[in-house]
């Protein structure tokens, strides 16, 4: 399965090199939006997190590629069917691989990605603590 996913992604990236360069990026088309404003808000938030696989670094919300439109419709269809955001994400990942998520899931392979800011802050705190070990007594103007 993984192999198939890889082939698909590689293909998608190759296509992206030819079609993605049009730059013409326009969000959704008229009539695409859902009538329920709450569902539509969720749809937009979800769309912004999903990568348009045939574009260069664009979310499906920003792209007018056919694939992006299909995916937007899929997201909205599932929202109307009452699925939660997580269920929809899982379904999209099952079909396209984790590459489709602009915000990678937390896990062993993304541990450093998510933890680096915290690690740097902790290291910085430790360093500051050492630097400040002997604070002087009187203030200087």
């Amino acid at each position, binding site marked *: 399965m993984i192999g198939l996913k*890889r082939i698909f*992604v590689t293909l998608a*990236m190759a296509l*992206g*090199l030819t079609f*993605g360069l*049009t*730059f*013409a*990026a*326009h*969000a*959704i*088309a*008229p*009539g*695409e*939006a859902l009538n329920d404003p709450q569902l539509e*808000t969720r749809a937009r938030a979800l769309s*912004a*997190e999903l*990568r348009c696989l045939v574009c*260069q*670094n*664009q*979310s499906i919300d*920003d792209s007018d590629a056919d694939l992006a439109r299909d995916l937007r419709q899929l997201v909205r269809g599932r929202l109307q069917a009452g699925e939660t955001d997580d269920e929809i994400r899982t379904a999209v990942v099952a079909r396209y*691989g*984790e*590459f*489709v*998520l*602009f*915000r*990678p899931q937390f896990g062993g*392979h*993304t541990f*450093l*990605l*998510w933890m*680096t*800011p915290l690690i*740097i*802050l902790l290291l*910085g*705190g430790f*360093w*500051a603590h050492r*630097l*400040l*070990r*002997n*604070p*002087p*007594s*009187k*203030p*200087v*103007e």
Partner: protein
Amino acid sequence: MIAEIGHFVLVMAFGVALVQAFIPLWALYRGQSYGRDLAKRAAQLQVILLAISFAALTYGFLRSDFSLLIVYANSHEAKPWIYKFAGVWGNHEGSMLLWTLILAAYGAFFAQRAVALPDRFATMVLVVQGWLGSAFLAFLLFTSNPFARLLPAPFAGRGLTPILQDPALAAHPPLLYAGYVGFSMSFAFAIAVLTTDQPSRDWAKWMRPWILAAWIFLTLGIALGSFWAYYELGWGGFWFWDPVENASLMPWLSGTALLHSALVAERRDTLKRWTLLLAILTFSLSLAGTFLVRSGVLTSVHAFANDPERGIFILAILALFTGGALALYGRYLPRLSEDRSFAPVSREGLLLANNIFLAAATMTVFIGTIYPLVLDALDLGKISVGAPYFNTVFGPLTLPFIILLPLGPLLTWQAGRLIAPLNALLIAALASLLLVLGLWITQAGVPLIALLLIGGAVWLSLGALADLAQRLRPYGWQLVRQPWRLPATAFSAPLAHAGLAIMIIGVIAASMWQSETVVAAKAGETMEVAGRQLRFDGVREVEGPNYQAEQGQISYLSGPHQGKVLLPERRFYQAERGQTTEAAITSDISGHLYAVIGEAVAEKRVLRLWFHPLVALIWIGALLMALGGGFALRARMSKTGQGAA
């Protein structure tokens, strides 16, 4: 013929750079005194030669000399002259020539002005500039010759990618490069400090104006790029966390840290080691940015150049300079005098916190940008790291940063007491807390972190005011009588910090409260967008200098803009076979109404209209930051003899 002259002087510049890189070093080693003078002459000659070379290439572009490969590949007869000119750096070879020219200009400027600096030190700075010049001229000559010929010459060029044919983008690369390359000066200073026995304690003072200059250019360059993306890419996004944007953000973040740590090193003789490390890393990040953009290892909207040979060459330059500098750093660090200690609650303490947060921010951008590449290279899977990741991480990172920030300038050096700044900021604290509370009650559905950031930005801007008041207090009546005689330093930090606050408000407002309307409309149809009554009048054909366009017309039917029209265009560039979207924007105090026309559907036309509230604050904030930097630079120049240096 002109092109051959350009090529020839480029080769000469390479020779001169080699002389500058090694012979003064030899003189230093032998204890002979001609080194400094030689380095100075070489630096001056180098900039003259590179300017001639650049002029020759510019001539080729203006005359549309298609026997030059890069003119053929990136220009077209029919282009307006300004874009023929900007086309010089609208391609890989020309932009690297510009990079090298700016590098040489910094070196020559330093050689000219640095008369007050000690011989050994100034020579070493110029030698390092010579190393960099040699490396990049070798890169140009061996992998990216801008003067390569194409014979027989074609009759027509392939043109410049249409979205690059824009005034803001014509100015964006030179500003950005002046920023990137400017950090080569602090890099060279760091190497000079490390390789000098008992360096003068004044080095941080000498270094600061160059950091400031680079930082100002980089701030302006990034802001201009963001503004361009906003109006040109057609949906009003201003920052995409695209790898190439990140490549410019990393040196900006670490350069901002450097700016502040050098201040501590200058005033308090502490954080010196850290400042030197930052100076090395900031320039390394500039080089890494050049590598990321120029090698094409990233797939992104900016990746115009794809050539692995070049990538490997730049990677080698990066490894050589970063690795070499870090080795020197490890070896000669013990020569520096001990860092002086200070209390956690002091201006140094707060500046240290500033640096830790900025380092974490820099590392976040770094790791987010290269993580997918590394994971893929190690065959651990393909992931994407995009805007949602960075927004998730940057919110919680920015909030404590801007909450701590106003305390710093109000504290004394070495050991301060919190009570004074807290007194001054009591009202600011109350005002921002009330604002957050009010927003939280009224704005359901907006994430709490966004509201907290707005509160933090208001607290920050009031803190900047308090700082300004404190700085101006000693001048009393002079404030009114002779405001132009007030010292520039009084305005620098308050302006820059207020700029950051204003930018944050713009970013949050434009992200959280924008509204979007997408309709298919017939001519004559009316619509309402963000409370404004509009009418779509229709589409007509218009002719540009090198494009045809469909121009839509949308009129305001009521409100303060009544009678005004919006004229968004879709342009088709024949020579380049490309198209661009030109948004029409009406600006007022509450924000931008942003209109774009789309494709025709039967006899209707797709219109996309956004309201971007307060979005202009993003770039106004950036301008204020640069202006604050300008005041600091002015104060530096008049104070340190780097006015004479």
